């Protein structure tokens, strides 16, 4: 019963990751991310109930606070301030991305069959899902042009890792998790600040211009 519920939440997280791929608006993309993080928080909370570990409650609360509220809010502000085009530009069009993603998901589901995760049902069911989410996040980072969408890809990837970590090992030590949260929040803030500053000097923000800066 528990494992079914966790699997269901994991499934929703995966669906939202795929929806992330098929979204073509920045605001929508951020909203999807927020919703996805909410489901991740929920799954952490439920696993906390299941294994009755207090660390997981704190972890769930932090996820809720940082990923559902703070990061989306920052991103919204950044998008508004930067006045960049609100369409997502991709290297690979959405239909093809979805085709690639479906094969990635199949592969990750097949691969995880051959990884021994111990006897836990939850981990067996949720691990392939979180692995697919990680791959989807990586794919978003690869295929999107704008840095801000790449950031969203990174955050999606991080959600996948979070899901995998909590489901497979019932959470890492609290201090590690807080460290990760701190990393994420710093990373996100840094990224938005950097993008913001670049935006003040250049109009068109995409990865190619960033590449030019390096030269």
């Amino acid at each position, binding site marked *: 019963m528990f494992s079914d519920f966790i699997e269901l939440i994991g499934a929703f997280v995966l669906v939202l990751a795929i929806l992330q791929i098929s979204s073509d608006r920045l605001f929508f993309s951020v909203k999807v991310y927020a919703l996805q993080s909410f489901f991740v928080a929920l799954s952490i909370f439920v696993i906390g109930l299941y294994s009755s570990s207090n660390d997981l409650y704190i972890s769930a609360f932090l996820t809720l606070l940082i990923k559902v509220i703070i990061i989306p809010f920052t991103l919204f502000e950044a998008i508004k301030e930067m006045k960049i085009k609100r369409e997502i530009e991709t290297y690979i069009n959405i*239909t*093809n991305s979805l085709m690639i993603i479906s094969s990635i998901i*199949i592969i990750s*589901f*097949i691969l995880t*069959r051959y990884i021994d995760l111990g006897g836990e049902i939850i981990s067996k069911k949720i691990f392939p899902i979180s692995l697919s989410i990680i791959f989807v996040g990586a794919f978003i980072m690869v295929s999107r042009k704008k840095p801000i969408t790449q950031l969203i890809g990174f955050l999606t990837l991080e959600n996948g890792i979070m899901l995998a970590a909590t489901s497979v090992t019932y959470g890492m030590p609290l201090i590690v998790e807080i460290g990760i949260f701190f990393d994420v929040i710093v990373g996100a803030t840094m990224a938005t600040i950097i993008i913001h500053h670049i935006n003040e000097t250049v109009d068109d923000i995409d990865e190619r211009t960033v590449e030019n800066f390096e030269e």
Partner: protein
Amino acid sequence: MDFFIIFTLLPILFFAKPRVAFIVQTLSSLSLIVFSIIHLINHDYLTFILFNSLINGADFPIRLDALSLLFVIIISTISAAVSIYSINYLYDEDYHHKRLFAFIYTTFIASLIFVVTSFNAISFLIFWEIMSVLSFFMVIYSYKNEENKKGGFIYLFMTHLGTAFITLAFILMYKNSGSFDFNDWIHLSLSNTTKFWVFLFVLIGFGTKAGMFPIHVWLPKAHPVAPSNISALMSGVMIKTAIYMFVRFYFYFLNDIPWWYGFIVLIIGSFSALFGVMYALAQHDLKKLLAYHSIENIGIIMMGLGSAMLFFYAKLNILAAFALLAALFHTYNHAIFKSLLFLGAGATLLKTHTKDMEKYGGLIKLMPFTTLFFLIGSISISALPPFNGFVSEWLTYQSLLLNNNINIELVKIFVPIFASMLALTGAFAAACFVKVIGVSFLGKPKSQNSKKASEVRFYMLFGMGILASLCILFGLFPNIVIKMVSPVSMLLLNVNIASFASSKSLFISTPNFSFGHITTLGLALSFIAVLAILYLLVKKFANTQTRITPTWACGQIKENVNAQYSASGFSQPVRRVFAFFYNPKEGVKKVEQKSKYFFPKKDYIATTTDGIETLYQLISKAIINISDYLLKKIENGSIHIYLLYIFLTSIAFLIYAIQGDF
């Protein structure tokens, strides 16, 4: 025995009088059908020697077993209808050298029959070559045409490439069995490596003939340029001889095949199907479109074949027989409706003198019967109930679903994906034929030629009519074909599939009746009943007046026939969505600025390129470059070097010869 030879060879004698030859061909084909059905039902399988050759072990034995007889029936059905059609067609289209035409035509059919009945590798290859070369002659029949020459050349090259692989496979079989006789090859136990090579060579060799993806390039070039009745025979039956040999090899000659043989066939099948239909959708040359549909249907047949091989591996013989039934049923069906469509295309081509669909339009009023037959063929090929295409596609779906019984993870995951590819294929096929019928037969004529079109003569209609009624007959009573296939499943898998797939009369079902069953006759009857009730209700209660007016053209007074939707416009969305696949080039070709206030006259072009063809071109370019390089290096014109080559070669042979002694 005598009957068989007489009926097969008799029409050739009459080639001097083409009309008589076609009539005799029709009659003898019909007799062959009767002959084969009688032998099939009685399980009376003849074996005899056609004639003894001087070389030992290379006689010309003929064996009429269940599989051969089934294919004789398929060939004869099509040749009977096509021959009737040809009585008028040859004279109306006015081909040169009519006697030559009749001679090649009748010999071609005879060679087809001998190909599927020969029971010796050597004699098989001889008939195979005769068949290939004769069809090559038909492709280049209008040899003054550049397109024909090009298509013919590619065909000749590809078919011999295929024959080379076939020969390799035969040599491997000979090495392991010590005989060219097919009797000695039955369930031959081979080592795994040899088995793999035989599998691969057979797949490539016969796959080339079948037009399997990705070695299909000749098919859309050669089939459309041949005379239409020959296109019908080529697409309808000639490519089926490859299917015949697939079945022979994979179910009869090879033994204990690994699971992934079937899986590979399944993959290739599903890709062929999708690939073929997508290119067909982008075509607006009617005959080329039909040729691409042949690739699609070969794909569907191979999907059935692949799942049969999977079941064969898993020793689930009943299910294997069921999947084989799907493949063979679709083989027969495709032969029928594809010939019908090619004949219909021939009729429109005859009257409008163009293969370009954009120049047809409005033929439904000028050629009502041709349109009706073409419509029936289209519904069949789009696998819409209650016609025959639906039955075999339903069987294919069911055999894919039943693949779930095989305990291999990869199969379980991928087979549903193949099934949805098949679903996409079916839907695209329907879209494609909406395009064909909508653009070329409905609406208003789009060119002077199509305005002047008129209905074709009686025998042409009769030929098409036979095939169209067969589409309906086999759709409503699929049990007829199941009965014909049953002896084949008995021979290959020792299962009487008729007792499983049509255990209740008028129903077709999966071996387990409750898993899935349909009755197309019931569907058709309920459909007609509903239609009748609807019609009566409307007639009784509704306003039945009809006012005829010109079509609303947004206020324009002058009728513009080009305002109708065109074939390239129809497929534009698909071209755009799958742009990575088609590599489309669209644009304005010629701009003629007459006055600056009016729109300039533009020629819009939209072309698509076959990705595989590009690949072939790249390969051929690379080969030419390498050869050029080698030519410069090796053949540099110095006579000393050439002498050195001769010297080295003789030494090499000497060493080889001595080695053999030890």
